[in-house]
């Protein structure tokens, strides 16, 4: 998929009442899954909506009979590819859950280096298996993405509700700045701080700027992200190339922009 909405037929197979839901994790901090348990106020309501059949972090019972699979984390080892293919075969709806799954997340920062050096730096000469950190969709198709590091629980609940009732899923196409302005925050640039809000996809309700912290782009690019405008803005406000690049490459969502940027720097 391309970040747009899945065709309605993808939920036709899903019974409208209490679909069987499974959670899986690849290489991750398990934070996105935890966001579900961490939502005490509405957790019970959420649980009444779905039937959780697999959630290793919370339960011992497991079942391979599920309709919706939430896959968290990025792929960094061969066995994870096999697990992912098995999940794809079973699930009617596969959700790439969080920025690790959607873009590789912070894990993909290791792809900047020679893999041999990466292993030696941490494990010395001991053998350890690891590959590049890659998003889920490098291996299987995903029907839906839920962006964010971490995902925003309100959005997860909305998406799940929409799947259950068979509604189309919409992602905001506009940038974080729109939400930030609606919240009447003081702009970080006016406080002398860098912010990726102008080019990052909204949907988090400007989580970081609401707390007077600059956005680092965890949700990836907005539909019409304009990198050259962003570069200009950062330069005008006195921020170095390094500061922009650190934010562009942090979560993997701006991968192609980083390549562009590096080319431009040469």
């Amino acid at each position, binding site marked *: 998929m391309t970040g747009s909405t899945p065709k309605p037929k993808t939920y036709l197979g899903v019974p409208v009442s209490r679909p069987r839901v499974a959670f899986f994790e690849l290489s991750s901090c398990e*934070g*996105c899954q935890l966001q579900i348990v961490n939502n005490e106020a509405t957790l019970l309501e959420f649980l009444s909506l779905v039937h959780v059949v697999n959630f290793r972090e919370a339960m011992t019972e497991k079942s391979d009979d599920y309709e919706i699979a939430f896959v968290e984390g990025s792929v960094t080892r061969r066995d994870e590819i096999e697990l992912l293919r098995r999940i794809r075969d079973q699930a009617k709806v596969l959700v790439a859950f969080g920025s690790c799954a959607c873009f590789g997340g912070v*894990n993909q920062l*290791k792809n900047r280096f020679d893999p041999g050096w990466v292993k030696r730096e941490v*494990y010395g000469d001991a053998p*350890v298996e690891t590959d590049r950190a890659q998003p889920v969709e490098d291996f299987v198709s995903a029907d839906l993405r839920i962006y964010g590091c971490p995902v925003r629980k309100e959005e997860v609940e909305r998406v799940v509700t929409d799947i259950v009732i068979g509604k189309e899923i919409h992602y905001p196409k506009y940038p974080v700045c729109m939400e930030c302005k609606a919240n009447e925050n003081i702009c970080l640039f006016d406080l002398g701080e860098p912010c990726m809000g102008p080019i990052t996809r909204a949907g988090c309700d400007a989580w970081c700027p609401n707390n007077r912290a600059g956005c680092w782009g965890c949700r990836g690019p907005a539909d019409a992200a304009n990198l050259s405008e962003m570069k200009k803005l950062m330069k005008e406000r006195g921020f170095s190339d390094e500061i922009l690049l650190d934010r562009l490459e942090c979560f993997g969502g701006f991968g192609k922009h980083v390549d562009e940027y590096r080319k431009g720097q040469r």
Partner: protein
Amino acid sequence: MKLNCNIDVHHVTRVEGHGNIRISIQDGELKEAKWEIVETPRFFEAFLVGKKWDNAPWICGRICGICSIGHTLASIRAVENAFGMQPTDQTRKLRLLLKHMETLQSHVLHLYFLAAPDFAGTGSVFPLIESAPDVIARAARIKLLANDACDCIGGRRMHPTRTVVGGFTMLPAKKDLAGLRDRLSGIMGDLEKTAELFKSFSIPDFTRETEYVSLKGSGSYPFIGGDLISSDGVQKSEARYKEMTNEYVVEQSTSKWSRLSRKSFAVGALARFNNNFEFLQPAAKELSLGLGLKPVSHNPYMNNIAQLVESVHVVAESTLIIDELLDSEFSETRQPVVPKEGMGVGAVEVPRGILYHCYEFNETGNITRCDCVIPTSQNHANIQHDLEELVSQYAVRRMKDSDIDLLAQMLIRAYDPCISCSVH
């Protein structure tokens, strides 16, 4: 001795991350009792190299979703120590308060959602939603308070937004702190009920003499920075943490192992409790004695009880911290940062034990080396040795396979391991 027993738990559930238990007894001989870690490493220590100092706390919090606040604070402390910065009194208090609320959140999550189902004889907390709704509502109430408090002080309950090198990007409103204080006083009753619940559970009777490592309290129960001690009498400064952790690579685990005076040691709530009992708040001390926990306890299953005791401690101390904050005028939220070349270590007691972050910087404040030593990786060797001892002790008593299996899993869960964190 039992003649034959084969247990193979592929991915222990209700723990964070991926680990396996393998037990085999053949013809009356213990062939193996193994705790294996199969989690995929993510290589934070490598991919941070080259990054500017401000990336460290922001990215390192992502080592772990459960204790992201602890990682962020350890990372910030390491950077501040490297740059020779001293947090203000106000920043110290707010950080400790934030830390306390993460401890409460994490301990309650573990006690109710991960540990309790074993004692209740269910595979997860979900059946209890129907059979014991008041118990679940209570757990949710405590967790919600703790998480709301983390939102209020850290900006976000997971991967906090306001915590930065030098202080905070933004301070909580005093009226929100006052509201938090009221809710904290109200939650003590829920913690007492939690204690009654755990008193009704029978904690497995198992001990193995163990060395316990933690921060050393001076004047108060320690959470952020200070000297390091072990119950075998070792004492080191924070900067010399490597002499305390002695990490090495083993074949059965993608996480490293640690040792100190013996072949393994333990960190966590029980270690802190054993080493710093005198500094607990009176209510916490009283509760521990009521639950039959006294220092020094060598029963790893008692870590559950130590977590409960600490939950009471952090709630009691948090109300005091808030009182002090409310009585003072808020000053500057954030100090300016001037990077400099050098090395810094940050040691922080996170829910599962002592955590160290260490960075080396060049003169522009870019990271040249990074090392993170995680509580659970320090515990893995100890879990392994406990497991061997447990299986031998219980096999002699001719216990059923399924009982040994359950006790082994409960042992692992008692440590509340955070495996993806330990591999990072």
